[in-house]
């Protein structure tokens, strides 16, 4: 995979999403659960706003000093026997990992959940070099069996219901059980156990790397990451270059924010910290540990007005709060990063050409900004993107540009404004019935496709006001 998923155009993807009643029901109920969980967890904590401020401070301090912390991190990882590789591009990251697989003559690679490996398309790269890749996160495993991209960054198979999952297991793995979630999960566990035992390499993502100690931490609920990081002899962690915190204390803050904002949990079932290779007096840990730090467009964001997008801790609270996401689902975004953060991040990492519609897939209601535990002004970033699309990339239609130029003239010339608002009622008369327009012309079409439009009033406010003034003058 890469950042972009599928080849359909935006309008088609949206229609697919809107027409998929199953998916919409699944998404809507999951969103409801996550949202109330987040609000409850925030309330429990009490001073949520202070925590958010602290989270924002930690993240912005880290980004301001990213080169320092990356340097510290790599020193610490190397001190503990690990190898650090900086990959500027997805290709470089994949080639490095393919090389390790080749050296190790690896046949099987097990993975725990990681968005950045989706972003760089690691699975395909490894498969190309002859490895079998097995996703061990339940959601990711389902999607892998189904050859379906993720639709959410925390719960990647959110768009599927249990009946669909049973079908997938039945078709691909000969499952004969029911659609009871416990039974489905038990089946997956049993299937995956063998993979863990056979794997030559374990690949993980990284929720946060702790710069002061070189620890790679993973925040999970299923326990699969423990298996991935304890059984295979070679371990590789892949991280986006911004996923770093200076100290353990900072980690405590961001993890508290993450688990609460993501699923409304005080803490997840597992928080795993990996620190380098097995030392002589230790009984477990890998022989070989590699940390791959991926840039893939991130450093371009540093120092720009979008820098705070790198503060993201991938909790998906913005996605769970987004009413547009609820109706169209994750796949409609055409990116492995959906929802508000996806609409902000995708054009930054992958350019505007394929993603110019995403910043417009929002009403700018700011539910995302309000939900974000590290206070990223997501809706403002969307407006900035729109400005760039219009003013720098010049990607809008001529008709729209003309309309907006007309708007500027209209709104900056009171005489023009007055005349047009006076004429509005007459102009729209041919379409008006009983004070409403049910099928409007031109740019009004989109509106009246979905709802009625009121006819302009017989008397504008300013006419009434003027008459009133005249009356009181007499």
């Amino acid at each position: 995979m890469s950042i972009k998923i599928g080849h359909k155009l935006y309008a088609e993807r949206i229609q697919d999403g809107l027409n998929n009643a199953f998916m919409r029901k699944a998404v809507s109920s999951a969103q409801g659960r996550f949202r109330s969980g987040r609000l409850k967890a925030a309330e429990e904590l009490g001073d949520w706003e202070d925590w958010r401020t602290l989270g924002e401070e930690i993240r912005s301090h880290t980004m301001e000093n990213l080169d320092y912390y990356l340097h510290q991190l790599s020193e610490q990882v190397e001190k503990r026997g690990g190898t650090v590789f900086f990959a500027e591009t997805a290709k470089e990251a994949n080639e490095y990992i393919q090389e390790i697989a080749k050296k190790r003559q690896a046949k099987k690679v097990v993975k725990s959940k990681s968005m950045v490996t989706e972003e760089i398309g690691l699975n395909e790269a490894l498969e190309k070099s002859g490895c079998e890749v097995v996703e061990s996160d339940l959601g990711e495993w389902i999607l892998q069996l189904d050859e379906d991209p993720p639709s959410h960054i925390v719960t990647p198979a959110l768009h599927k219901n249990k009946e669909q999952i049973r079908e997938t297991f039945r078709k691909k793995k000969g499952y004969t059980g029911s659609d009871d979630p416990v039974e489905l999960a038990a089946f997956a566990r049993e299937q995956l156990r063998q993979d863990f035992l056979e794997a030559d390499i374990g690949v993980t993502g990284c929720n946060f790397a702790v710069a002061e100690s070189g620890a790679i931490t993973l925040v999970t609920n299923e326990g699969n990451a423990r298996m991935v990081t304890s059984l295979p002899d070679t371990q590789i962690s892949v991280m986006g270059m911004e996923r770093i915190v200076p100290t353990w204390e900072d980690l405590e803050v961001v993890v508290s924010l993450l688990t609460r904002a993501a699923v409304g949990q005080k803490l997840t079932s597992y928080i795993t910290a990996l620190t380098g290779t097995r030392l002589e007096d230790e009984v477990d840990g890998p022989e070989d540990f590699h940390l791959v730090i991926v840039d893939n467009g991130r450093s371009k964001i540093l120092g720009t007005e979008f820098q705070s997008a790198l503060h993201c801790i991938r909790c998906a609270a913005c996605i769970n709060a987004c009413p547009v996401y609820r109706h169209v689902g994750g796949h409609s975004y055409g990116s492995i990063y959906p929802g508000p953060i996806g609409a902000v991040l995708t054009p930054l990492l992958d350019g505007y050409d394929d993603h110019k519609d995403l910043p417009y897939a929002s009403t700018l209601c700011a539910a995302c900004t309000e939900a974000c535990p590290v206070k990223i002004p997501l809706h403002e970033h969307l407006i900035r993107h729109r400005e760039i699309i219009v003013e720098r990339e010049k990607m809008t239609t001529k008709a729209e540009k003309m309309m907006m130029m007309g708007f500027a003239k209209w709104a900056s010339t009171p005489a023009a404004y007055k005349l047009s608002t006076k004429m509005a009622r007459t102009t729209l008369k041919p379409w008006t019935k009983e004070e409403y327009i049910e099928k409007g012309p031109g740019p009004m079409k989109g509106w009246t496709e979905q709802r009625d439009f009121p006819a302009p009033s017989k008397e504008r406010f300013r006419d009434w006001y003027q008459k009133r003034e005249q009356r009181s003058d007499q």
Partner: protein
Amino acid sequence: MKVSLFITCLCDTFTPDVGKDTVELLERFGCEVDFPAGQTCCGQPAYNSGYKSESIKAMKQMIKAFEQAEYVVGPSGSCVHMLKEYPKVLADEPEWAKRARKLADKTFELTQFLVDVLKVEDVGSTFTGTATYHPSCHMTRLLGVKDAPRILLENVKGLNLIELPMKEDCCGFGGTFAVKNSHISGQMVQEKAEHIEETKADYLIGGDMGCVMNMGGRLRRNGQEVKFLHIAQVLNTQ
């Protein structure tokens, strides 16, 4: 107290009653209201669509129109918030930014002005009926006006206020979004219409005419009998 009314282009053209009610309300509490005739539109349709330089033309006109005002009060959280954004948008033009800052500082949304500046919590109105209130996104999240409308409505005699389920969800208006992404917008406003139906209210009340027009237009399209009103209309009923 001298107040200049910022009517908003929507209320000026489509719902003059909202303007009349706003004037009367303010006058009832001792304000001397004037209407600067040079005002047009706050520029939001262009600004939110990415047409910053086009929107700036509108903004400058508004700054000029309200330069003499002591207070500026408007019946819309969204348009008032746009005015409050002017200094940021005009940051590259320090002279204009300064004038914009002055405007931003003296501008208030109607319910905010009543409660926070005039210190009125009970406007003394009577409105008999069952209603539900939609707190619009820009008013609550961007402008931060969450309590004022509720406080005022709770003190209206005869009004039976029913909480709207999922009230903080956007109604799907979003300015040009309603046209550009009309299918998504349609589903969002449909969900809102269903929640309104659940309350069995006779009236839907909102504080932003754009959102009210969107929800009202869908209610009408659906054949739902719910009447829709701007909060100023309710507060000025006696």
